[in-house]
């Protein structure tokens, strides 16, 4: 084991889903466009970061969102957080729509969804004591008075594995992993229902990543949290998630349970993502013992500005056919309940012969 990274050993554990089935978050046809800087006189152009994305998340579930840089996964997370105003579609938390909420409902909705940020060096105000940072959500939402908030902050410090003696220290006195724990404590302080984790470990040392992931898993059980876990690392996402949505160029191209995605990926992009995991020997599940095929993607991602009407993965797809160049595959449900946007699902064998 000593030669392997902490990540690999962590992967050996198997998640047991404890999903209640009750729908907590529903995202429908979400679109987020950004205006692109344009020269005077030229046509006004738009970058479509999130293009008609729909999914729902049940209470207690973890939805993993995976995709390469620039695929819109962070924008999607920021829309769910209410940090970006969607250009279209609806986001509803327990039936209350976030996109049309008044300022007052927005504040209480904000409390229900909290975020763990990617960069722990950027997400803590260097001029505030960590105790004040963690107490802030309680004070803002009137959950406690100053003394109560401090006591609760000390308790939360204990929960996330930090010594409550460090409440009066400044962020620069903590390591990256410790800062991320402070960020998690801040998110928990608002007593949220949904925790959006946007690349929560990708800025951390590999040796620390597993600790933070384990902490997040433990907290989910303890506080009955629902997670939306965003990462470019499909291995990390698989470890954390009950269901996985694979994003490509602003769209979800495949969505299924983590076990299904792992054992039998259907979309060629998912196959290539899984094939890129350094250790390509499948350890457990239906495909245990097989080796994944390594697929080196060639070609470029189409620009999210002025998308073509073809399948966006077509230029890089090893199994693309004529129709892929002509028609954009629609997002449909397969017989086994998966969602996929591909004309030829399952045509790329994910394993070596």
């Amino acid at each position, binding site marked *: 084991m000593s030669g392997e990274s902490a990540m690999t050993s962590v992967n050996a554990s198997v998640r047991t889903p404890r999903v209640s089935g009750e729908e907590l978050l529903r995202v429908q046809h979400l679109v987020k466009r950004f205006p692109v800087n344009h020269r005077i006189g030229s046509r006004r152009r738009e970058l479509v970061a999130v293009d008609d994305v729909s999914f729902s998340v049940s209470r207690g579930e973890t939805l993993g969102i995976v995709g390469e840089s620039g695929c819109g996964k962070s924008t999607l997370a920021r829309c769910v*957080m*209410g*940090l970006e105003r969607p250009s279209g579609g609806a986001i509803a938390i327990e039936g209350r729509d976030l996109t049309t909420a008044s300022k007052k409902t927005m*504040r209480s909705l*904000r*409390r229900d*969804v*909290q*975020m763990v*940020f*990617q*960069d722990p060096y*950027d*997400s*803590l*105000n*260097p*001029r*505030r004591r960590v105790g004040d940072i963690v107490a*802030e*959500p309680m004070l*803002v*939402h009137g959950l406690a008075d100053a003394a109560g908030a401090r006591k609760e902050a000390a308790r939360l410090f204990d929960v996330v*594995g*930090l*010594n409550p003696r*460090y409440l009066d*220290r*400044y962020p*620069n*006195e*903590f*390591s990256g*992993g*410790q800062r991320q724990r402070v*960020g998690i404590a*801040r998110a928990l302080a*608002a007593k949220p229902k949904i925790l959006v984790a946007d690349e929560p470990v990708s800025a951390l*040392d590999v*040796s*620390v990543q597993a*600790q933070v992931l*384990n*902490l997040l*898993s*433990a*907290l989910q*059980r*303890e506080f009955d949290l629902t997670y939306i876990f965003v990462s470019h690392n499909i291995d990390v996402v698989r470890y954390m998630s009950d269901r996985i949505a694979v994003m490509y160029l602003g769209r979800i191209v495949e969505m299924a349970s983590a076990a299904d995605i792992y054992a039998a990926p259907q979309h060629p992009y998912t196959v290539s993502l899984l094939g890129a995991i350094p250790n390509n020997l499948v350890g457990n599940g239906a495909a245990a013992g097989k080796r994944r095929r390594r697929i080196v993607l060639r070609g470029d991602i189409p620009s999210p500005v002025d998308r073509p009407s073809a399948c966006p993965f077509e230029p890089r797809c090893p199994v693309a056919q004529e129709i892929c160049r002509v028609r954009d595959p629609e997002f449909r449900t397969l017989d086994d309940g998966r969602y996929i946007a591909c004309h030829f699902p399952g045509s790329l064998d994910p394993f070596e012969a």
Partner: protein
Amino acid sequence: MPTARKADARLIDGTQIAPVLRRRNIVGEVLAAPQAVVALIILVLVTLSAVLAPLYARFVAHTDPFSSQVSATITLGGKAVPVMQQSTTGLKLGVTPIGPTWSGQYFIGADNQGRDVMSRLLYGGRDSLLIGITSAIACCVIALVLGVLAGYVGGIVDGVLSRIFDVLWAFPVYLLAICLSIVLLTSRIAFGPIVIDSSSLILPIAIISIIYVPYIARPLRAQVRSLCQRGFVQASISVGSSNWRIIRRDILPNVMPSVIVYFPIMVALNILIESSLSFLGVGVQPPNASWGTIINDGLPLLYTRPLVSLAPGIMIAVTCVALNLIGDTIRDVLDPQAKIREAV
């Protein structure tokens, strides 16, 4: 299995918190630099001399530095000497004020009206420092408010404020100051019951504080804009903090170091611009005196009694150098990347 959970989840990375980087002692770090100590001593002396000006005038110089003393005489070495001395050369026409006695009365001589230049120098320091400091405070406060407003609110507010800054910035500093002064000084200003006399010090203070606002507000605006993209501000928004709370807790504490760096340099710039305006006659108005007006007083005496102009000039130079030294040291300590656009 709560015990098992504790075992893995509560594992603290590194186990020990870094015992480094306690809160920095900024004042201590600034005072560790020898040039800052020298500058501070100079500034304390200048300030003390300005504060004690009335005592000097009464007990050392025995004179009223604001009234004409053309017919006065002083006792020098047992003999009575007139302050305004008759010319002894050529046609023996005209009078020259007494030169430096280097003791008690008329320490560095008299000006054209026989007034004690040393006393006036100390009194002038009062006005120069007062204007320099209050207009720097006003300038920093206005710039902070506008810069934070433009950077935080963005959109139309930012657009309008930024264009106003651009217009102010586009003017040469002295041209703008002189224009404002001439307009304001030649008309009596009345806002309802408040009437501002044209000799009031409020006018130069107001003029000078407005002129440099864009020089501070623009960099602050840029700083606020980049702060708004930082994770901790985004975190505060997602936590649900109000805008005012975010400005107070996240924005202001992070831009204050820049304001602190700008402040002493602004005081120096303001003293310079005040002196220039007063020298040109559009700054401090009689009966008040400032270093700039004293330089102007000494203008006709430049060949015979150069010290009348030289002394306030030296005071301005020394004070500004000291303020810049302190500003540079604070900048090095607080904010090594900060750059201030030097005003011309």
